[in-house]
């Protein structure tokens, strides 16, 4: 036993991060690190992307690590706090980015972007919104816009004898009954992830009372959550839950593993409200579900008497990559080079479009018409480009502490443990945080 000690000691010291020299952001010459979300098709796209980048740039390589969505959101914060952030930080902009900026953990890219107009203009101007905090840009928008789409399974609709997807909330509610009677779960939902349930509220709030409802909340106006439109939207949500609109057991399904998408292409549910990236996921994993034309989509229903514009959309206007302010000079240079030449290269843009995603590259729009997923892409792109208001995902727009309270309350709302009034009271207490 005693003899093992020195051996173990030697092995262990090899495993740890070193002392003062081992700072964050990938410490060595010309080597940058990047944390990214797991899940295809993007995981494979980026893996290949980095592989070819590293081959072409042997002295400025990038090391990419993949994390699941929910685990990532926690891990990145602990890593940043520990001074061990990756060079390039994947994010969604908004309040979380603001908290990084306030802690001085991400670089201000405004000047660099102004000096490199090619890079700046490679992506749609509208996408800079969530990346801009107090007039300064702290992240580079890239990848795809993800509007939230209401999908439906044409096979299931046909089997049950429903001819068309709903256009109004009342129609939706009656369809819920129809499907339940036919023994099919009406709507699939990965409730445990919570931000998936949040999508429902984002749309309902807007349809019911227009964008001003959430605007007031975002600005921290007192009692903004008790707005009668907000309460009405919350009530409608609970009505849907009580009518058994969501599949049994939704509270314990997580989105990380694409289990909710699996429900769609295994015909276990009739409809699903989810981000546009899931089209690519279902196309990838669902066999001939998508290619066989079984996946349909429709606009989120209107509410009678609602003030919102039926063309308003919500979701993520893009993906936002920041550079850690603790990264070494060489690593930062690699990252900037990558932003300029690798992250949204022609090849990558084409791959995103081919997989059925709404790429925000300025050059992408032309490619949609040529894609085999033309119908979907043009619909999603239209949704994004023509929306009078494109509301950013609430849990990213708000500060991390508020977001956590929000998700927690949403969880309770959907499990019917609290009333809309209690939800509003709880959330009002977080205003301005």
């Amino acid at each position, binding site marked *: *036993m*005693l003899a*093992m*000690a020195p051996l*173990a*000691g030697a*092995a*262990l*010291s090899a*495993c*740890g*991060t*070193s*002392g*003062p020299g*081992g700072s964050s952001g990938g410490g060595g010459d010309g080597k940058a690190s990047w944390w990214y979300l*797991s*899940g295809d098709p993007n995981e494979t796209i980026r893996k290949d992307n980095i592989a070819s980048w590293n081959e072409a740039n042997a002295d400025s390589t990038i090391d990419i*690590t*993949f*994390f*699941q969505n*929910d*685990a990532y959101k926690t*891990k990145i914060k*602990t*890593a940043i*706090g*520990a*001074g*061990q952030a990756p060079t390039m930080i994947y994010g969604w902009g908004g309040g979380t980015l603001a908290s990084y900026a306030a802690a001085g953990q991400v670089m201000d890219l405004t000047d660099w972007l102004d000096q490199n107009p090619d890079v700046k203009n490679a992506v749609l101007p509208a996408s800079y919104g969530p990346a801009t905090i107090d007039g300064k840009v702290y992240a580079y928008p890239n990848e795809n816009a993800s509007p939230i789409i209401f999908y439906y399974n044409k096979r299931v609709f046909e089997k049950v004898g429903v001819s068309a997807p709903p256009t109004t909330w009342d129609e939706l509610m009656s369809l819920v009954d129809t499907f339940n009677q036919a023994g099919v779960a009406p709507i699939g939902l990965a409730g445990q992830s919570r931000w998936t349930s949040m999508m429902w509220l984002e749309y309902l709030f807007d349809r019911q009372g227009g964008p001003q409802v959430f605007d007031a909340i975002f600005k921290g106006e007192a009692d903004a959550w008790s707005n009668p439109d907000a309460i009405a939207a919350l009530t409608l949500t609970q009505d849907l839950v009580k009518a058994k609109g969501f599949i049994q057991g939704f509270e314990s399904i*997580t989105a*990380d*593993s*694409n*289990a909710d998408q*699996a429900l769609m292409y*295994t015909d276990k549910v009739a409809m699903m409200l989810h981000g546009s990236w899931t089209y690519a996921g279902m196309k990838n994993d669902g066999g001939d579900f998508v290619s066989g034309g079984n996946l349909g989509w429709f606009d989120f229903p209107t509410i009678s008497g609602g003030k919102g514009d039926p063309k308003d959309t919500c979701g993520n206007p893009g993906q936002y990559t920041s550079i850690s302010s603790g990264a070494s000079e060489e690593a930062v240079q690699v990252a900037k080079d990558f932003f300029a030449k690798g992250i949204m290269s022609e090849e990558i843009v084409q791959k995103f479009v081919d997989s059925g995603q709404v790429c925000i590259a300025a050059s992408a729009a032309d490619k949609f018409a040529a894609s085999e997923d033309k119908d979907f892409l043009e619909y999603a792109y239209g949704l994004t480009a023509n929306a009078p208001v494109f509301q950013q995902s609430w849990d990213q727009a708000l500060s991390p502490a508020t977001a956590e309270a929000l998700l927690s309350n949403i969880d309770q709302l959907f499990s019917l443990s609290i009333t809309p009034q209690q939800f509003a009271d709880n959330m009002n207490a977080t205003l301005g945080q």
Partner: protein
Amino acid sequence: MATATDSSTRGATTSRSRSSKRPNWVGGLMGWVWLGVIVVPIYWIVITSLKPSSEYFTTNPLLPSASPTFDAYQLVLENDFARYFINSVLVTLGAVVPAVLISFMAAFAIVRGKSRFLRLSSGFLLMGLAVPLQATIIPLYLMIIRLQLYNSLLAVILPSIAFAIPLAVLVLGNFIRDVPNELFESMRLDGTSEWGTAWRLAFPLVRPAIVTVSIYTGLQVWNGFLLPLIFTDRQELRVLPLALWTFQGQYSVNVPAVLAAVVLSTLPIVVFYVIGRRQLVSGLTAGFSK
């Protein structure tokens, strides 16, 4: 009376047949029911892990597959399982060996020594039994960051050693106290130093306790989840429980694969247990029943 009871309780049951047969009705029923409760999930885990993933949704879950396959296991092994296994081994050995050694030294000192410092130490360590590791992770996080140990196996090992100490000192101390004083006296008369006495006399004599403590601590560290969860994020530093969790998050729809991972992560310990069972059981009953 003590000795007589021991040999009779430890020996053949025939002489105790009357005393032991009595609670058997309720106890027996409970025993078999509980056996079922334990065995059914394990059985399900094993047979499902051998099913091809396409069959999982369609066949009866309680029957083994007609065409069992190791595909799931292959997937797990391809996903860097060996590396996580090695990390777990490093972390466990790295924690258990130092913990047991320094706990033995402390227990010896506390039992044999006579200073105020030692009395205070023993009280101090005893209080440590009531401190749960979970409650200290926030300051530990701050400390680990400051020590620049974030993202290292040491970050998992060092606190593990610390929290293994109180119980180890307690159990080892109990056993050291059992060593007859005459033996210590004779070593002292021979001129052996206390240090020599500790390692040449006490250590071998309390071997069952050493084994018990090592196994108990080893099991805790091997299966530890919280420390790796918070202090490591690099994929190559994951230990088995953490790797299992991330694997499940990624592949949760592929149930046979997830369960194959569960089996593989438990298998090493099961093998170890089957081999060292007797030691562990006797050690545990003796050590904890004090």
